[in-house]
């Protein structure tokens, strides 16, 4: 347990509505009693109950702000220490004043991430869980938050612990045969190889989940493609649900492309519209066109827009071919107008592509399109598979992978136990480092530094 009591604003600054100031430590309650006056005189601070009252400036003997206070006694709290939460009006001025009063009453302003650090030091969470908390706070999509939440619940830790158990089990067999040669303990290279293969696969899956995790965290990149005037910009706005005027390029201003994040249910996409490009013929913008093409080729998916009110052109077909191998959704736009394109025939020509008739202008089928985007573009995360989101985790997993793999290869090449076991042994402290069991201080400090205050 840490000696002193810390205080900080625990809701992000600048957000309206309610704000929360949190205290943690042995003196949390006594400090709260100095800076908070319950509405009903002489009321005690009951555990885990919201208590209405006022913030109280004891130096001036005046109350100013109405507030709620909740007292969470140790150890069933986030930090495993006594915790007090004071919720009041969310303006930064008010919240900072509450913190100032708390400090005057004996609390110390927390370092960045210190609440989480305490939770870790008091054994409530391991490092993976601490990282997950950080991720939840900063989650850019609900999907990512869900993965992080699963991690927070200890999903990834459990997986790694069972991996560690498996490796330790294997090691103990081999070590025993080395240490007690007179007992003639037999080890089966076959079963060791099998166990190693299993461990290697587990680690590999985790390493590979990093790219997926990253995509989910940062959002899938989608590009709107199509000939000029098919309605890309209109669709861009329709998907963003906002007025067209905002994105209409001002004449004469140069811009390469527009990029916006959109949330569809629990997923996030980064949508790129290059409409601005094809509306210009200025040579200065050729550079931008190149860049746009590159973006399109690197994208996770393409929304290919066709104008169904016009007969189809060669250019449309060329575009489809250009994006071969990519995930594409064909959109027959302007379906509110008289159809000139033979949509059915077109679809038959590309049976493997998803398609939809829409109207970007009237909004027809836009919500269907959103569903289709999730269905086609968001990779399945599987049911129980863990997903890693941090480079730190990935790098460690890669080291674990190479240790196990090398051990396996040495075993296959007929090296004796003490040689290949040396490699397998390395995996154990690495797993410890991953879950934070044997971390040295510097790494810890690094990790906790990147935390915002509180949960």
């Amino acid at each position, binding site marked *: 347990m840490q000696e002193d009591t810390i205080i900080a604003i625990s809701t992000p600054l600048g957000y309206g509505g309610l704000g929360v100031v949190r205290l943690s430590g042995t003196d949390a309650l006594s400090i709260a009693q100095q800076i908070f006056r319950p509405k009903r005189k002489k009321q005690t601070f009951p555990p885990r109950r919201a208590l209405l009252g006022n913030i109280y400036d004891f130096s001036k003997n005046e109350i100013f702000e109405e507030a709620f206070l909740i007292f969470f006694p140790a150890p069933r709290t986030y930090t495993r220490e006594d915790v007090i939460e004071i919720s009041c009006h969310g303006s930064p001025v008010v919240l900072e004043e509450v913190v100032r009063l708390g400090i005057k009453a004996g609390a110390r302003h927390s370092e960045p991430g210190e609440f989480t650090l305490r939770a870790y030091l008091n054994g409530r969470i391991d490092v993976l869980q601490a990282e997950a908390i950080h991720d939840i706070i900063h989650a850019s999509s609900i999907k990512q938050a869900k993965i992080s939440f699963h991690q927070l619940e200890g999903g990834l830790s459990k997986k790694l612990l069972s991996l560690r158990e498996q490796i330790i089990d294997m*090691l103990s067999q081999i*070590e025993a045969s*080395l*240490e*007690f*040669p*007179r*007992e*003639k303990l037999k080890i089966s290279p076959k079963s060791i190889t099998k166990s190693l293969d299993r461990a290697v696969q587990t680690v590999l899956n985790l390493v590979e989940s990093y790219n997926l995790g990253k995509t989910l965290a940062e959002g899938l990149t989608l590009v709107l493609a199509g000939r000029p005037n098919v309605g890309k910009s209109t669709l861009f706005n329709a998907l963003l649900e906002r007025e067209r005027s905002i994105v209409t390029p001002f004449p004469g201003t140069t811009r390469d492309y527009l990029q916006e994040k959109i949330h569809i249910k629990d997923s996030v996409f980064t949508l790129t519209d290059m409409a601005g490009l094809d509306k210009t013929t200025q040579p200065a913008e050729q550079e931008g066109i190149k860049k746009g093409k590159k973006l399109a080729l690197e994208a996770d998916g393409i929304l290919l827009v066709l104008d169904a009110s016009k007969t189809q052109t060669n250019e449309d077909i060329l575009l489809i071919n250009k994006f071969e191998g990519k995930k594409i959704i064909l959109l027959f736009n302007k379906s509110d107008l008289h159809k000139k394109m033979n949509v059915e025939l077109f679809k038959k020509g590309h049976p493997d592509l998803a398609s939809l008739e829409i109207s970007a202008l009237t909004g027809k089928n836009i919500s269907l399109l959103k569903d289709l985007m999730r269905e086609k573009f968001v990779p399945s995360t599987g049911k129980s598979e863990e997903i890693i989101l941090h480079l730190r985790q990935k790098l460690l997993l890669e080291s674990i992978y190479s240790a196990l793999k090398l051990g396996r290869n040495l075993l296959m090449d007929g090296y*004796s*136990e*003490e*040689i290949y076991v*040396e490699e397998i*042994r390395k995996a154990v402290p690495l797993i410890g480092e991953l879950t934070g069991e044997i971390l040295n201080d510097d790494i810890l400090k690094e990790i906790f530094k990147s935390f915002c205050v509180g949960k």
Partner: protein
Amino acid sequence: MIDCDVLVIGAGHAGCEAAHAASKLGLETCLITADLNKIAQMPCNPAIGGLAKGHLVREIDALGGIMGFQADKTGIQFQLLNRSRGGAVQAPRAQSDKALYRKDMTKFLRSLPNLHLVQGMVTQILKNGNLACGVKIHTGEKLFGKAVILTPGTFLNGLIHIGLEHHSAGRDGEPASLELSENLDKMGLRLFRLKTGTPMRLHRDAIDWSLLKPQSGDQNPVPFSFRTKTRLENKILCFIGYTNAKTHEVIHNSLDKSPLFSGIITGIGPRYCPSIEDKVVKFPHHSRHQFFLEPEGLNTPEVYVNGLSSSLPLETQNLILKSIPGLELAKILRPAYGIEYDAVDSTLLSETLETYPIANLYLAGQINGTSGYEEAAAQGLMAGINAVLKIQRKKSLILGRSEAYIGVLLDDLISQGVEEPYRLFTSRAEHRLHLRIDNADK
């Protein structure tokens, strides 16, 4: 009384190395022990070396210690273990003639000019403030020195268990050291309880050797010591036997008379050295357990039954033997027993094995929670060397984990402490592949 620089208490394996090192480095040294006829006694198995332990002996030898040379000299069967594997996990092991080892060690220590042997039971460590300055023995006599190295083995409040009976003893047939424990406790050295055990000794003439499988030593024995120049000779055979279903039944039927299973023994025993009743209970699917019959010397009828350590009552021990082909008529010369004793929390030690609470007081061997002759000897040696270096105001000798198994041993003790009797394993070393018996002198 002689005025000494270094006082060593206890002439076990730790004490012998410590006393030898201190006197060899030129300081007047006094070795005080309860019984001068029991110097360097091996209370358990008649062997030295094995995995990690053999490495330790090589390192002790390289640092000028005596265990390796004495073990070579008094060995009666030699084996290099893990011969088929790589150099890093090969280790020498020698069966010893216990009596010869004792006698020869005593003779050798007596020959050292600066070393004085004193018989006496130490009852108290004398202090000057927080500095150890001497000891008091049972006669009331006081001895003074600049450093005190304490190596009392299993003697501190030792309690021997045979079945549900127990009695106070330091080991079989020797009185425990009672006052000293309390004295250490008062000085702030936290004590805790550990447990170990030893199997029965049989009379060789009542064993039907034809029913057991012989095991010989190596053709070309490898010595421990870089100084051993004579050719080593195998003089005995060991034998291998197995327990069976009948044996296990006998044990199961007698568990209510086990001090371990009935909860009388509270000290923590070594997991890696389980008693036969432990093995039978914990591994019910094993239809048999291997044991070795090892002669304790050339001129003694005593045979050590390696693998049948127990604290069951004597009658059960007899029944166990009766169930095993070849041992049906065996005669027990000394019963198997378990022993509980006090050890000191080793995290109170600095890397030279000097205690933090009391300066100039060094602890080595079993008292630090370790088990094994070699672990004891290694600590004794390091405590002896460093006590001298401190008196001479020289820089202490600290070995790193990557340099030597001794480094691993000491570092584990002082930084992690001990929960069960600590034994060194090669796998405790992160740098196992570099710590080899053939480069222990580097």
